[in-house]
């Protein structure tokens, strides 16, 4: 009770004394936990390096500037590859994500006991694992190249698009589904006439959004051998060619800005 009656009349406090103590204890626990984590994390940290960091940073910066603009000419092909990896990966991921989402949505799944948990697991597994890790695996399995990158992008996109789509399917207006089923429509017709129109705009929005994210991700997949700008980044880093690294960063940055602009435009047009 925030208001207590004492001999001096009513006393107001924001929380009861018990809640004050609990709140304080919670904050204390959080701080203690943070300090504990900090100590575990830094137990092997070489503080010499940390103190040295500003000098190191200044050194790198000095070596990175001016950027080697002549290197730009050899980046167009990897940039084109990067874009294509993102686009094809997004498409492949979308094609797989759509059926998975319908199997995962509570109102369209054929079986709540078996299929739905399985589809949900596919989604969470895909979401938990970054495309760079998928690429690492796929390069080891399929060999280096764009194919590994495309599949890595696709595998990560399944979870993203699948999750947004199945949530959209679960939020549809069931009245429209009821009305279409009442006409004697089959299951596929109900999906086509009652569900697809309701989820289409948000679905396209999430695909474009994912495409935008995938361009960022495909730019670095080459670090583990999957093609695109990352390959150049890796080889430049290996020989400590910082002026080239600067150029690559500039190209990545410009691509990201442009793709974000496009994706924002498309999504705004859809709403």
């Amino acid at each position: 009770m925030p208001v207590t009656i004492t001999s001096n009349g009513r006393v107001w406090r924001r929380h009861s004394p018990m809640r004050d103590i609990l709140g304080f204890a919670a904050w204390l626990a959080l701080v203690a936990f943070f300090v504990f984590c900090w100590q575990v994390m830094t137990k092997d940290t070489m503080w010499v390096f940390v103190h040295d960091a500003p000098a190191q940073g200044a050194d790198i910066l000095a070596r990175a500037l001016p950027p080697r603009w002549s290197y730009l000419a050899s980046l167009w092909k990897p940039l084109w590859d990067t874009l294509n990896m993102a686009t094809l990966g997004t498409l492949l991921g979308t094609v797989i994500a759509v059926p998975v989402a319908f199997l995962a949505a509570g109102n369209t799944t054929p079986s709540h006991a078996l299929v739905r948990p399985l589809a949900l697991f596919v989604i969470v597994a895909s979401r938990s694992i970054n495309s760079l890790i998928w690429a690492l695996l796929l390069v080891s399995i399929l060999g280096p190249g764009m194919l590994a990158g495309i599949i890595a992008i696709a595998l990560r996109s399944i979870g993203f698009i699948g999750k947004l789509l199945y949530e959209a399917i679960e939020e549809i207006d069931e009245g429209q589904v009821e009305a279409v089923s009442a006409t004697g429509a089959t299951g596929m017709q109900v999906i086509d006439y009652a569900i697809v129109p309701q989820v289409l705009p948000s679905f396209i929005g999430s695909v474009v959004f994912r495409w935008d994210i995938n361009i960022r991700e495909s730019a670095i997949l080459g670090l583990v051998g999957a093609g695109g700008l990352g390959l150049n980044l890796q080889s430049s880093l290996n020989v400590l060619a910082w002026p080239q690294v600067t150029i690559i960063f500039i190209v990545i940055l410009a691509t990201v800005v442009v793709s974000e602009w496009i994706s924002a435009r498309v999504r705004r047009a859809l709403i």
Partner: protein
Amino acid sequence: MLRVSNLTKTYRTGDKALKGVSFEVPAGQVVGLIGPSGSGKSTLIRCINRLVEPSSGTVHLGDVDVTALPRGKLRTARRRIGMIFQEYALVERLTVMENVLSGRLGYVPFWRSFLRRFPPAYVSNAFALLDRVGLIDHADKRADALSGGQRQRVGIARALEQDPELLLVDEPTASLDPRTSRQIMRLILEICRERRLPAIINIHDVLLAQAFVERIIGLRAGEIVFDGPPDALDTEALTRIYGEEDWAAMRRQADDDASDDAESAAQSREAAARLAGIA
């Protein structure tokens, strides 16, 4: 025509929505289904086309026992039963025409419906129906661009596009203003008469029901407590259905409403005359 016998529905929560309901609707008869909220009206009409699975009892449409049909056959039974919904239940993001054509989904294979390539007869029928409900110029508009009354007209056209033998109407006027409500009720009744189409209209507005339908069934707690012509619905019967209330006062209020409605009735007569030429 339609024979419902001993229909019960118990929901998984244990609520008994229907407790042995039986009645028959002969060809061409329009029945008003009244009763307080939670009396099972909505469950009852949804049990007829099995949007809600009845727990026991049978529903015969002509010679077919709808309740005994397997899933695949249910589709052919459902297309014989048109349904009009409370909140219109149009697919908001589809065009008006697609909504009307969706009434034919039970008749066409998936590829036709997917490509929107309906047989010409169905398309011209859909145009005729849109004309009948006064919306032929809106065929290409999206359903969410229409007003409430217009949407319900599309809902009516969709149900009729099915070429149904029975019409189930669930609270057609619940989200409409009084004047539009009467227009919509009048339209439904006119269409039922033109086609000698039997209908079950689930309606919470007793006076609207009395004004339009030829038979009233009163439902209370899942049981039929009144079944007769509108004139027989006296204070005693109303009390049986709804419980104690000042029914006389309600009727006086209604008379005032009715005089407000005279103007709209004239308008609607004019519309009906125009439509008569078409039908």
